[in-house]
């Protein structure tokens, strides 16, 4: 009954001040929604282990992550198998390799589609714990049979390419123009391990080599025995590896020296390279959101504290009348409980809306590539609900505690005697100062990081990639392996592929609306990933001191198609193809470098004619390549990406690649150019596929979309933080000054000039600012250093954030001090003294 009275009393107090109630509820709602959204996103993206309905989580065993390349080191399946056979902690393990392939109906080339195909060990579905909807799973005998490969289709591919044919099981379809038999169809939504659409069995020879070799590219997915932790397995893995790698032949000896281990075990979700690479960004985001939650709590607590200061006489009267302390605390908690509960009810709606936007953004990002891991679809879960309940509880405790503490710390006798405007006790004053300093520090961290990320993202979008993208169409062209296989010997196969690519270029360039055509392994603005290289005669003593470059291959006469210019030397020509053939026998090949590389590495000039080669830490190096020309600068990879480098080397498209990116400079209508490209490919080779046809502008924008959508969260967080900081610092400062109104009046009565009173408060505010800003900037610097591991932080944004945000906060605090002090000074001292 007494609780009901307290609730009604709290509700009445809230209704009496609707603006205050609305403001605090809005702050709580936004704070909780942002936390809920980020928690759900991060949990589903990274932190919640992937179990697929089983008791133990899935883990990945893969090579070392190469930060410079943005991918994991390829690993030798020989070691993976040895680990599996010797481990006592692994319950099951299966090997796989993800690839992009063409799949179509037998005898119907037009049905060929690019799909994400995963080559798998026979027990992959057993490890996943999911069985086919139709047909059967792979069996060990499928792996032994090298003459007839078998595949399992995803539900989506079965419906889309094979029109849901009920008789699909046993039928022969084409993968890369090679016939394979369908043995099963998986249930809807199953895309394990990441984005698989078709699963094809790998051969025993590939899976279980008898000795170590340089073949690689496989990854392992595994489950640990019940009760075994990842840390325990990581320890076992390190021990087993140490034993395995000690007796390797000299050429593989480097495997024993890989920092962190040649093979590493990580939670399965972190096997997605882009997530692993941006892990620190995600952790930073989580930290920033937690800071916002804390800021929200302090803010609402401060607002409630200001209210308590207004009601302190009521509280004192209650204490004087013998109301127990516990009851008083409960009364105060009810007010914050009501606010936090309403916020907690509204927050999921706001978070859900945010998730819908994120899902839409991801749909857009992966519309072309289809490379979206299957768990990257976000929705509120039971875990989210628990988190929300926890956050609401935490908020109630913090926001209720601050005012309750203030009320019960007061000198009841003094309050009853002097009224609400009694001088602020030293202890309460110190707590007020600490709260203001926390607000300053927290808002500084959040805003600095938000500005850095937003600025970097904007800079990346506005970056000059050194190419012209208008009226340029891009696409990825794939040749079916079955039609260009090596069975005629590599030079013949290369000639055949060469004939296709240059035949397509000639055919398109004859069209009236096509100006020129070029091929790039990765077009400027995309790709990225760097390697070390050395200049002949200038090798660094330590491998890692060698410069890094991005190496791409291009077709002859490619530059003008993307608006690049040849600045020195010559372009590739037909004679280079002959040299290129010799390169395969170790005689070297031509390379063209970009202007920045020529300028910075050959400052005396004379880059043309120098020799250069790529190398890695494991002792591998390419053949020497001779610099034959210098082209204008372009940037490969998004400028935000830490794997991007200002140095680029271009080799002649040697046609060992099965796919190239085509860029078509057209005039007139884009749709017409697209149709022409598709038709030309069909005319030349019906088994070849073209996909991801889009404008060059869209292509460049695509890698930034993910970071852009993450940045939107930071921007939202930054705006919330700015609002919280502005309102919180002002409320806190105004409250603190109001509580000292009698002191101000006394000082004025004693003849202290008004400007000295203002100066006194400014001085105190500056001390708080200094402490808060130093703490905030230090934390922000640490966080930005973490971010710099994963992305390029734009230097202008860095400076703007580190100077602008503290400057903004200084203005905010000075304003929050000046306004309430000026308000006090507007009144005659007698007014404040009269309120004794």
């Amino acid at each position, binding site marked *: 009954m007494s609780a009901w009275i307290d609730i009604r009393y709290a509700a009445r107090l809230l209704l009496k001040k609707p603006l205050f109630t609305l403001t605090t509820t809005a702050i709580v709602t936004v704070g909780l929604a942002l936390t809920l959204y980020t928690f759900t996103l991060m949990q589903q993206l990274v932190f919640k282990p992937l179990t697929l309905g089983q008791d133990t989580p899935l883990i990945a065993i893969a090579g070392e992550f190469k930060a410079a390349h943005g991918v994991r080191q390829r690993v030798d399946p020989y070691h993976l198998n040895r680990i599996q056979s010797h481990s006592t902690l692994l319950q099951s393990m299966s090997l796989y390799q993800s690839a992009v392939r063409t799949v179509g109906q037998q005898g119907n080339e037009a049905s060929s589609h690019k799909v994400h195909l995963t080559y798998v060990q026979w027990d992959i579905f057993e490890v996943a714990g999911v069985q086919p909807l139709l047909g059967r799973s792979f069996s060990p005998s499928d792996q032994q049979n090298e003459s007839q490969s078998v595949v399992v289709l995803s539900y989506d591919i079965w419906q889309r390419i094979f029109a849901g044919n009920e008789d699909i099981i046993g039928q022969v379809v084409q993968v890369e123009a090679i016939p394979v038999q369908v043995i099963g169809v998986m249930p809807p939504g199953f895309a394990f391990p990441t984005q698989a659409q078709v699963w094809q069995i790998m051969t025993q020879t590939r899976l279980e080599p008898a000795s170590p070799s340089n073949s690689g590219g496989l990854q392992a997915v595994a489950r640990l025995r019940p009760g075994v932790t990842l840390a325990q397995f990581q320890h076992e893995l390190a021990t087993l590896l140490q034993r395995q790698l000690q007796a390797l032949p000299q050429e593989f000896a480097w495997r024993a020296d890989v920092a962190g281990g040649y093979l590493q075990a990580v939670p399965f979700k972190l096997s997605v390279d882009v997530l692993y690479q941006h892990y620190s960004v995600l952790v930073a985001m989580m930290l920033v959101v937690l800071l916002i939650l804390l800021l929200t709590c302090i803010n609402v607590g401060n607002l409630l504290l200001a209210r308590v200061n207004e009601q302190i006489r009521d509280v004192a009267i209650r204490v004087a009348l013998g109301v127990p302390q516990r009851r008083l605390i409960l009364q105060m908690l009810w007010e914050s409980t009501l606010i936090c509960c309403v916020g907690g009810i509204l927050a999921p709606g706001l978070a859900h809306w945010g998730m819908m936007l994120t899902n839409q953004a991801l749909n857009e990002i992966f519309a072309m590539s289809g490379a979206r891991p299957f768990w990257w679809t976000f929705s509120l879960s039971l875990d989210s609900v628990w988190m929300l309940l926890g956050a609401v509880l935490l908020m109630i405790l913090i926001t209720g505690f601050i005012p309750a503490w203030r009320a019960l710390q007061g000198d009841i006798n003094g309050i009853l005697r002097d009224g609400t405007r009694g001088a602020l*006790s030293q202890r309460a*004053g110190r707590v007020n100062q600490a709260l203001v300093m926390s607000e300053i520090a927290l808002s500084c961290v959040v805003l600095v990081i938000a500005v850095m990320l937003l600025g970097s993202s904007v800079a990346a979008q506005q970056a000059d990639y050194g190419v012209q993208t208008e009226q340029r169409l891009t696409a990825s062209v794939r040749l079916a392996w079955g039609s260009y296989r090596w069975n005629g010997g590599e030079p013949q196969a290369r000639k055949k592929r060469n004939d296709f690519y240059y035949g397509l270029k000639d055919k398109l360039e004859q069209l009236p609306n096509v100006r020129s055509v070029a091929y790039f392994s990765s077009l400027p603005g995309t790709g990225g990933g760097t390697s070390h290289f050395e200049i002949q005669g200038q090798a660094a003593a330590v491998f890692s001191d060698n410069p890094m470059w991005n190496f791409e291959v291009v077709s002859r006469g490619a530059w003008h198609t993307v608006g690049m210019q040849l600045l020195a030397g010559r372009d590739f020509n037909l004679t280079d193809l002959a040299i290129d053939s010799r390169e395969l026998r170790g005689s070297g090949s031509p390379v063209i470098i970009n202007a920045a590389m020529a300028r910075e590495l050959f400052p005396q000039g004379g880059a043309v004619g120098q020799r250069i080669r790529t190398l890695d830490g494991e002792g591998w190096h390419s053949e020497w390549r001779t610099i034959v020309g210098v082209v204008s600068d372009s940037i490969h990879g998004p400028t935000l990406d830490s794997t991007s480098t200002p140095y680029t080397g271009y080799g002649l498209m040697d046609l060992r690649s099965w796919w190239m990116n085509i860029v078509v400079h057209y005039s007139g209508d884009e749709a017409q150019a697209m149709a022409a490209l598709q038709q030309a490919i069909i005319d030349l080779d019906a088994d070849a596929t073209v996909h991801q046809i889009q404008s060059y502008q869209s292509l460049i924008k695509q890698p930034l979309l993910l970071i852009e959508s993450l940045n939107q969260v930071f921007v939202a967080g930054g705006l919330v933080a700015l609002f919280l900081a502005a309102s919180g610092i002002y409320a806190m400062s105004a409250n603190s000054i109001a509580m000292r109104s009698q002191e101000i009046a006394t000082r004025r009565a*004693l*003849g202290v*000039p008004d400007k000295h009173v203002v100066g006194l408060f400014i001085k105190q505010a500056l001390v708080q600012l200094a402490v808060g800003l130093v703490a905030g900037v230090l934390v922000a610097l640490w966080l930005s250093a973490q971010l710099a591991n994963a992305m390029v932080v734009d230097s202008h944004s860095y400076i703007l954030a580190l100077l602008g945000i503290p400057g903004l906060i200084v203005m905010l605090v000075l304003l929050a001090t000046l306004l309430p002090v000026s308000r006090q000074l507007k009144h*005659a001292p007698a007014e404040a003294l009269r309120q*004794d």
Partner: protein
Amino acid sequence: MSAQQQNSRLVELAQLNKVFVSDDVETWALNNINVQIAKGEYLAITGPSGCGKSTLLAQLGLLDTPSGGTYRLAGHDTSQIDKNERSRIRNKEIGFIFQSFNLISALSVADNVALPLSYRADLSRTQQRERVLAALEQVEMTHRASHFPAQLSGGQQQRVAIARAIAGQPAIILADEPTGNLDSNNARIVMSLIDTLHQQGATICMVTHDMSSAQRTERIIAMKDGVIVSDSPTSLRTAVAV
């Protein structure tokens, strides 16, 4: 009025009014007040709650501006001076003793006493220190110089407030119910101190509704509803009462 009397006048209020306006309702807190206070005078302003005595004291202390009339302090018309000059006059010429002491909790006893002196350009640091010590000695609070207000009793706090009021050697000391928050013993001590100050030549104007305190003064001004209803020497009132 003789020239000597004219010169000895410290305070002259002529037809002074103070009107508070709230929700279109005018409240005449002071209505046509005419008062003169001579140097060295010791007077009390009395009257029931809400009669306007504290408002009058605020006017005398330049803590508020009048709605009408004139106030001359030491021959200077205060209606013509700006905020800064009012501050300077308060700082140098007026000493305040408040009912609720109004010591600044974050400052020590010595710093509280030194506060008004620290804005006096005519006093060196040494002089300020000497005045603080002298004032504390006079109220017998030297031994508590480094303590903070919260560590003192009510009587001790008021003695510190008196030290603060006299440290600057002001032309007039304004005391607003100086014993209002004190027990009888402490009230007696405080009143003795104020009496002593008067005996040493200080001009003291005290607002009180405690008649026993008022009767210690030389002159009593009685107010009601913002108007002075009587202004007579204490001896006369005592005689009438007798």
